């Protein structure tokens, strides 16, 4: 999994996201020791902060070291996908791909925190190349201020959803609600090759007496 963290404002959201990510990393590693993570930060352009590693603590320190960001008007998605396309090798399709699992898959977890910065995506070439692989997945976590006429949260969220061209993504949002953020990040733990579609997920435990036969 590689993370894109783009925190817009200077207050607590960053701290919250860091904590949620820390939980995410520890939990994901508990699920399977072989998972690896890389960290990409987006300032005016994307930069690779930490290369793929299974060392969760080192990613968390890199996260802690990341300074809070500066206000920027818009976010350049092209530069981000160009960087990823350049730096992340995807596994080749080999053998009978209907039964043979790939050696690994790549999932991009895009964490976006701007309530006003629109996502600019002029050149989609790199994105298309990445997305054409069955072993590449795009997920997003949008952390924002409560929706109001003063911000453009809804528009931004819609743009994010547009990136789900294959229909396999998990795209979540949380409006500065810590619990909800943790909940959504936990849902993002699910392995893209094994998880249900976002429209199918259901986590509520029912008492057995309440259930009808399935």
């Amino acid at each position: 999994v590689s993370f894109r963290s783009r925190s817009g404002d200077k207050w607590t959201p960053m701290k919250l996201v860091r904590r949620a990510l820390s939980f995410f990393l520890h939990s994901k590693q508990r699920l399977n020791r072989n998972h690896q993570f890389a960290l990409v930060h987006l300032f005016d352009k994307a930069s690779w902060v930490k290369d793929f590693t299974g060392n969760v603590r080192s990613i968390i320190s890199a996260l802690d070291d990341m300074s809070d960001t500066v206000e920027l008007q818009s976010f350049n998605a092209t530069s981000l996908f160009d960087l990823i396309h350049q730096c992340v090798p995807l596994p080749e399709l080999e053998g009978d791909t209907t039964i043979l699992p790939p050696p690994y898959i790549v999932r991009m977890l895009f964490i976006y925190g701007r309530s006003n910065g629109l996502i600019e995506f002029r050149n989609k070439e790199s994105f298309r190349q990445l997305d054409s692989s069955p072993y590449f997945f795009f997920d997003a976590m949008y952390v924002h201020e409560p929706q109001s006429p003063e911000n453009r949260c809804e528009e931004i969220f819609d743009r994010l959803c547009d990136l789900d061209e294959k229909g396999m993504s998990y795209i979540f949002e949380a409006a500065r609600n810590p619990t909800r953020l943790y909940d959504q990040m936990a849902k993002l733990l699910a392995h893209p090759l094994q998880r249900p579609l976002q429209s199918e997920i259901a986590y509520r435990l029912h008492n057995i007496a309440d259930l009808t036969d399935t």
Partner: protein
Amino acid sequence: MVEGKFGVCNGITRVNDVKSGSSTLRKSPSGDRFKIYIPYAGQTITWEVILDNSCPEEPPDFIFEDSDFCPNVADIKSLVNWDIGDPHCLTKVIRELLEHYKTFHERLLEAHSRLQFEYSSLLDQTELSRDLIEVYSERTEKKIGPINFLIKLPVDFSDIPPYLTKDNPGENSAVLLILFPSPDSSRVTPQLYLSPRVEHAFGGSGNLRIPAFPSGGCLLDYVPDVYKLLQNKVEKTVQIYERRKELIAAFLSHFGRSVLEFDADGFFDISFLFEWNDFFFILYIELAPSFPQEAPVLTFQSIYHESKEKPYSEVHDKYPYSPRWSGPEMATRIKTYILDNIQAFQKQSVISGSL
């Protein structure tokens, strides 16, 4: 044309023998003589094949590294009937020569009563047929030894769980290599070789120990013992694999829409994200190799509170359980257990953990 034959040989030289070995071919710069390395009885024998570029219809000559091995050319039918047009011509010759070579080594045993007894008793008094056994004797001027017995055990591997890898793991086999340092030695050393898929099913190469060869023992007793051991291990492995698979499938049918990850290869673990009264938590379910004897280990993990810089979690491995329950029954009962314990977990995570 030599290249053509060369290629053909390479392709089909899976010498149809006890060990499905393939031989590598190397040729000298002139391009019409090359060496073949053939696995046989735990050794690799080297034969040099000499053809003539200028007269390709002429059958090849052979140089055997073992100078005592000198079969009569007239006995090698495929050499006598050498037909350069047949793409398998060389393979047929090699195959026949290998048969002769095998007989040659079988005859060598006749001079040593103990070895001869070992060999013939295996053939006569067990279910092993001649094509499953290869013998080889290392000889120097003064003495004979070590002597190898390579035995392919006819274990039924048909139900072994699949091993999904892009490299073909090949056929399933178990081969026993037994070394006699000298004809009358009692320090006999056995070694078991398992094919990749079998090894994977057993959980790695270290996981099956074969007994040491008893001093004063004989192959007639030892080999069937190892065979039975293997056959039992296979049956057991298949059984417990099926139990794990059954349980994981039962959990998926209850909770498939909450799944985070599961082991789709060995079915050793599965994890879920659950919500109970707006309280989300993760549940890990892990099966030990000794499952179903040992109950699955359940771990509850908080996604809000941490303890000692890690998410707060609780391990539950002692709960009402019976290995006799079916997969679906186990899943249902574990679900009840989870429901009964969430509230306590939630409270404890708030108390013990920090936000």
